[in-house]
């Protein structure tokens, strides 16, 4: 099968994730959309690995997963901390860092 299909799928997922990040306000949902984007990239990496015929892509995808895991841990901890003080999980409420 032409691996291009996977890439198209990956692109679509990435775009959907990106839109999700932009339109959702619940921090956790935003975060999930980020995960979706990461996964889309991973998919393309695996596909590239297949196209190129070596495993480097898969290894990088693996690293992305690990880093994503770390990121999730920290990200969720941050969301929790913010929620604890502000009683809100909306990303729009966290807007103190402005002009």
């Amino acid at each position, binding site marked *: 099968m032409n691996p291009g299909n996977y890439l198209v799928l990956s692109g679509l997922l990435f775009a959907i994730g*990106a839109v999700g*990040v*932009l339109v959702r*306000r619940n921090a956790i949902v935003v975060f999930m959309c980020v995960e979706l984007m990461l996964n889309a990239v991973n998919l393309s990496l695996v596909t590239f690995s297949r196209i190129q015929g070596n495993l480097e892509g898969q290894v990088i995808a693996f690293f992305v997963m690990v880093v994503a895991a770390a990121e999730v841990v920290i990200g969720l901890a941050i969301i929790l901390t913010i929620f604890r003080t502000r009683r809100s999980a909306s*990303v*729009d409420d*966290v*807007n103190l860092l*402005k*002009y």
Partner: protein
Amino acid sequence: MTPAVAAGAEGGAVHYAAASGAFSLSWLLIALPLAGAAVLLLGGKRTDKFGHVVGTVAALASFVVGLVIFFTLVGRDGSDRAVSQHLFSWIPVNGFQVDAGLLVDQLSVVFVLLITGVGTLIHIYSIGYMAHDPGRRKFFAYMNLFLASMLLLVLGNNFLALYAGWELVGLSSFLLIKFWEYKPAAATAANKAFYMNRVGDVGLAIAIMFMFGTLGSTNYDHVFTAAAGGAIGHGTITAIALLLLLGACGKSGQFPLQAWLPDAMEGPTPISALIHAATMVTAGVYLIARSAPVFNETQAARTVVVIIGAVTILIGCVIGCAYDDIKKVLAYSTVSQIGYMFLAVGLGPAGYALGIAHLLAHGFFKAGLFLGSGSVIHAMDDEQDMRRYGGLWKYMKVTWVTFGLGYLAIIGCPPFSGFFTKDKIIETAFDKGGTSGYILGIVALLGAGITAFYMTRLFLMTFHGKARWSHEGADAKHPHESPTTMTGPMILLAIGSVAAGALFVVGGTLQDWLAPVVGEHGEADHVLSPTVLTLLTLVVSAGGLAGAVLRYQLRPVDAVAKPDAAVSPLTVAARHDLYANTFNEAAFMIPGNYLVRFLVWFDKIIIDGLVGGTAATIGGLSGRLRRTQTGYVRTYALSMLGGTILVVGALLLVRAG
């Protein structure tokens, strides 16, 4: 270049012998008073007790060295009397080589004797005069500094050394005028003196630049050799001469820079005697005489010199008649006497020696007059208004006699010194020939008459007539003779004023002595016979004298001057210094003030405003731009996505075409 070679080959070449023997000590002349000044200034209060002794001894020692050098010089061959001493290299930059070097020759040595001699006498006088002043030590320090500077001025063997001395005497003069600096008038007068001197200094500085630019040297021997050889273009040499003249006018209080000199009388009287009568103010005459080879080459510049001299004679005389302040009258008399000297040196080779002779004689009698006036002021509790004097001769006989001798000298009464020197100048002015000669001669003659008038006025108002002061009352005066430290120098100076003229002029002593420096003085074609002229001069002077006697001896003198409305316009103008100050204010000070105010505004509003405006514009813009930072993460993400699309799109466009 050929002119250089030619100049060296011609007869005008100037050569100075290297210093040896006594001459190698000539640096001591400057070093002694300088050391005195340094000790007194750095020693501080510790030297208060004996400061005046240190200062006087330094001056005296310098005078002794000067005498030794003078007699050594006399002992040398007539053509070999110019001795140059190289001390150290001062400013050596490639083509511009200036050495600290001294030149002892016939001209400088007479100045050395005048400066150190009169200087020492005035030091001695000051011991008494300043006895009660808490700043006496400082006074002596400044006087010593002045001596050193003045000696540097006359001893330097190049124009830059002269310039250094030139400005340093200006500094000493400044320091001494503002000696009583708690008096605002003194401080203002000092500043005025320095500013106007600086204007002159600019001229001198530019002249030196011209010399270097043209000749590559500022040494006397090089400059004079080139000038005498005719190697310098006519335009250049005229420019140099006129610029030197500007410097001379500033220092000597000549028109148009004369306004500072009368104000300088705010300083202590010994200073007026030493600096503003006998020595410093005559530096301009020295400069012109020293630069004789330059002035000889340019008729135009000489004409300007004589015009300035003539104008200044009249200005000084006219204003001198109007003032009641004894020191101001003497100051204007100085102005006018220096005018005579300028007139003389402006007449070329015929006049240099006469100018110097008058300068020396003037140094004696004017210093004596000032010291006498100081003695009077001292006795009258610092009263300077002559209208409050009168009949003082009874109370201070020594002052009266010495002052009287000086007075006779200045009005040109034979056989006192002024008679010989002034008479000769008038004669030479007539001898110049042509209409200009007549004009100059008549001006000089007229000046002699007016001088006789106002000096007689001064003398009579001060020492004769009815006393216009009282022993009793709120401002009771107790005139008394001054102490010996003061009268001693006065007596010596009086002797000098009696004898100097005859000594210098009769038989052409000084002319012969100075001939190697300023050029030979051939016998001129007399327009009027000397005898006739002498008689004419005497008659004119006697006329002035008689007028003054009529007006101030035979009629009572008012204790208060008449208001301006009651006197002639000329007197009013004279009382206002012929509006010199008014002119300076209107032409320089007021526009200057406005210019400064405008520039302060300009700097703050325009230049800084431009900078601040730019900053404010950027600040305003960034303030607007700042509003895009809403703090909403999603907005940022949106712009990131937009940016990504742009970049990816651009990449695709470039890559995929």
